[in-house]
C-alpha cells in the first residue's frame, strides 16, 4: 500500500465530482439534484485542501472558507425557491416543470 499522494486525493475529488454530475443529470427530483450539486461543491473543496496541503500554501484552505459561506447562502435561497415553487405548482419533479416550454 503506497503512501497517499496528491494524485490519490485529486482522483477521489474527481470521482466525487463525477458522481455529483451524474446525479444532476439523472435525477428528476429537484431536491436530490440540489443535494448532488452540494456534493460537487464538496468535491471541489477536497481538491483545494489537498493542493494547499501538498504545496505548503494557505490560499486553498482560505478559499474553502468562502466556498462554505457561499454554499450556505446558496442552499438557503435555493430551498426557499423550491418551497415557493411547490406552493405554486404542487410538484418539484423536473420533467413536470415545463410551463416555459410551449
Amino acid at each position, binding site marked *: 500500500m503506497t503512501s497517499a499522494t496528491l494524485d490519490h486525493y485529486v482522483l477521489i475529488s474527481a470521482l466525487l465530482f463525477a458522481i455529483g454530475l451524474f446525479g444532476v443529470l439523472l435525477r428528476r427530483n429537484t431536491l436530490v439534484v440540489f443535494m448532488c450539486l452540494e456534493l460537487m461543491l464538496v468535491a471541489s473543496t477536497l481538491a483545494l485542501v489537498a493542493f494547499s496541503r501538498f*504545496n505548503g500554501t494557505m490560499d486553498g484552505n482560505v478559499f474553502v472558507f468562502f466556498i462554505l459561506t457561499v454554499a450556505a447562502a446558496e442552499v438557503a*435561497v435555493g430551498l426557499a425557491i423550491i418551497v415557493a415553487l411547490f406552493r405554486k405548482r404542487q410538484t418539484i419533479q423536473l420533467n413536470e416543470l415545463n410551463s416555459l416550454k410551449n
Partner: protein
Amino acid sequence: MANFLFYAFAFFTVATAAGVVASKNAVNAAMCLLLSLVGVAGLFVALNAYLLAFLLLLVYAGAIVALFLFIVMLLDMKETESRGFGKLSLAAIILAAGLLVTGLSTLVTRGHLDTGNPALTPALGTDIKFYAYQLFTTYLLPVQVMGFLLLIAMLGVIVLSKRWEGSDDVT
C-alpha cells in the same frame, strides 16, 4: 495506519456519494449525503486541515443537511419519480460518461502531479492563527463581501417565503 484510514475514508465517501444518486427516497439521499460529508471531513483530517474538517461538519452536516431534511418533510411529496430518459439527456449522459472515463484514465496513467515530500512540506492548515492572519490581511475585502452576501441571501429568503397579499397560491 494513516494510509489505511485514507483508503477507508475514500471508499466510504465515494460509496455513500453513490448512495445519494441511487436512493429513490429523498430522505435516504439526504442521509447518504450526511455520511459522505463525514467521509470528506475524515479526508480533511488526513490532510491536517482540522479546522476545515470541523467547519465542514458544522456547516454542511449540521445546517445544510438538516435544512434539506426539513424541506423534504415539509413538502411531503409523492414517490412518483419517473424513470426513463429523453434522447437529449441520454446523449448528455453518454457524453459525460465518456469524458469522465477519459479524464480519470488520463489522471491515473499519466497524471503524476509534481509535489514534494509531504513530510517536508509545512502543514499550514493545522494552525488557526494562519487562517486568521490570511483572512484579516490578504482576504479582508472578500470577507466583507461574504458578509454582504449572507445579508442579501437572508433578505432574499424572507422575500421568497413570505406570502404576499393577492398571490394566487394553490393551498
